[in-house]
């Protein structure tokens, strides 16, 4: 009688401990789902590994020669000569003069300010933390001869340590940013001129 009870108790407590331990969820797996075929269709989902595709992933590069919607060609090559040429490139969107510089402010804050600074003085957070050095401000003293065409060129192709931002911004967004950069350039130049005059 006593023997049997002891056995039962040990069995029951080991079962309970087993249940508790197995409740610990593993963070590395997504876990189970009900009715899996409702959740996961046979179609390949975004970023899913896929053995059928040549690069074993569902995120493929577009077919060569693909032109995305709203694409505006830009022919000036990514070379030093190309950069010089871009300075005299005056092809701007038809509504360029009508763009309010403030429209580009938010985009500037998202895509430029962590390097070039909120004021366009080349003193963004990455410069302050000395992660990236030598970032130019937009003032006339630092970049004397930039034009809307050359700013567009730099956004498209990058320059020196700046990479191309063409994949992150659409045509309209680039020009909105350029408009805001030109405004910051004026602010910077006025500030510098003021400082020079004040001495």
């Amino acid at each position, binding site marked *: 009688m006593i023997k049997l*009870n002891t056995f039962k108790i040990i069995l029951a407590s080991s079962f309970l401990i087993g249940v508790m331990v197995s409740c610990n969820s593993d963070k590395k797996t997504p876990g189970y*789902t009900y009715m899996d075929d409702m959740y996961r269709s046979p179609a390949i989902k975004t970023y899913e590994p896929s053995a059928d595709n040549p690069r074993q992933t569902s995120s493929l590069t577009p077919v060569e020669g693909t032109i995305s919607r709203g694409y505006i060609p830009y022919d000036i090559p990514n070379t030093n000569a190309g950069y010089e040429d871009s300075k005299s490139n005056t092809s701007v969107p038809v509504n360029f003069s009508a763009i309010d510089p403030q429209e580009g402010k938010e985009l500037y804050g998202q895509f430029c300010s962590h390097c070039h600074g909120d004021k366009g003085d080349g*003193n963004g957070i990455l410069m302050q933390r000395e992660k990236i050095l030598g970032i130019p401000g937009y003032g006339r003293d630092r970049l004397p001869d930039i034009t809307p065409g050359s700013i567009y060129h730099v956004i498209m192709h990058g320059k020196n340590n700046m990479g191309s931002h063409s994949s992150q911004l659409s045509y309209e967004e680039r020009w909105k940013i350029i408009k805001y950069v030109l405004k910051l350039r004026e602010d910077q130049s006025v500030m510098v001129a003021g400082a020079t005059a004040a001495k």
Partner: protein
Amino acid sequence: MNSCRMYMRKGFSNSLLLRLLSIVLTISALSIPASAEVDVDLGKKLFKSNCASCHKLDKKLIGPALSGVTQRRSEEWLLRWIRNNAELRASGDADAKAIFEEYNGSIMTAFPALSDDDIKSILAYTDAVPAVAIPKDVPTVQPVAEPANDLFLIYVLGVFLALFIILLLRIRNTLKQINGDDSSTVIQDFNALTQWLVGNKRFMTAATIIVTVGFIHQLFWFLMAIGVEVNYQPIQPIAFSHKIHAGENQVDCNYCHTSARQSKHSGIPSTNVCMNCHMYIDGTEILNDAGLPKYAGERSPEITKIYAAIGWDAENRSYIENYEQKPVRWIRIHNLPDLVYFNHAQHVTAGGVECQTCHGPIQEMDVVYQYSELTMGWCINCHRETEVKTDNGYYAEAADGGKSINERLAAKFHDEIITVEKIGGLECGKCHY
């Protein structure tokens, strides 16, 4: 700000230069006075804001390494070159032409705004710093208390506790024997207790109710949690830290996840976006807690993975031609079932919802995990509580009948707060179709 200070400095030192020049002329003594204007700290600041994008001290970047450049070139030549190198090249200087050719015709920016003293300060800085970066004063490394030690302590305490219990039991049995009773083992005591409890009907009834209710409660929540992947935190192929990028360096979420503004998906950035910063930042500068270079002056192994994926030749600073790029196999964390439609652009751009509302404190996560449940109840709850942003112009436009949408909504809902629910945010077909 920098340029501002630079100009003030220039004015100040120009007047000082004149005075000193007159002193030098009268005394016609040593060439020391130059050092009076030359300020290594100023040189450092100027170097970092003007030169460092293309030059490092100890290693070739876009231009040559600048440590010890004053030994290679005369000061006069350097002054002319830095101020306007194109002019110097045009004047037919052989050295200038040679260096221009050596660096594949990369055009160095002209710096007409820098004064002689500014340039001399920069040169003094390049001289002052040794080519090999010496780590900052090394504090004595304190061994961090390892968590294994804590566990060991618990085991030791456990052993002591067990010994203590055994000791107490032996004392009790000894006392019992002195009293003339039979000694008993723990198991015997335990059996006696359980037999008494099993015989007690009230206890058994109460115990059955408690156990049943508890079991059903647990079972309910266990079944509810199936298909909810909250806290899912897989190990990614590159140890990318959102804490470093979005938190410490404050890079905007939209910078990398560009498509969140315009499309259904908030895309994972392709490696060319990584390269926008990591062309320059290669991890050599990262310091560990002791202030020493974390990777002993080598590139970070994680950043090297980006280079391997996109085919970047870090030595020559160029992309390798005809490189077979290998996509990084990021593991997707947030998965909605196929039976539901969700659109990022609608929430980010139209709704103006912060990323953190759904994704949690991303800027504090070293390894990202799923913060929200992403269940239908969770969606619905937010749609019930969130007020629609009506200040974007669309709602102010006059529509049918000459009244703006804002006015019509106000009339319909008697000036109550307009939540997403009220403009149809709970309709089934909005998300399920």
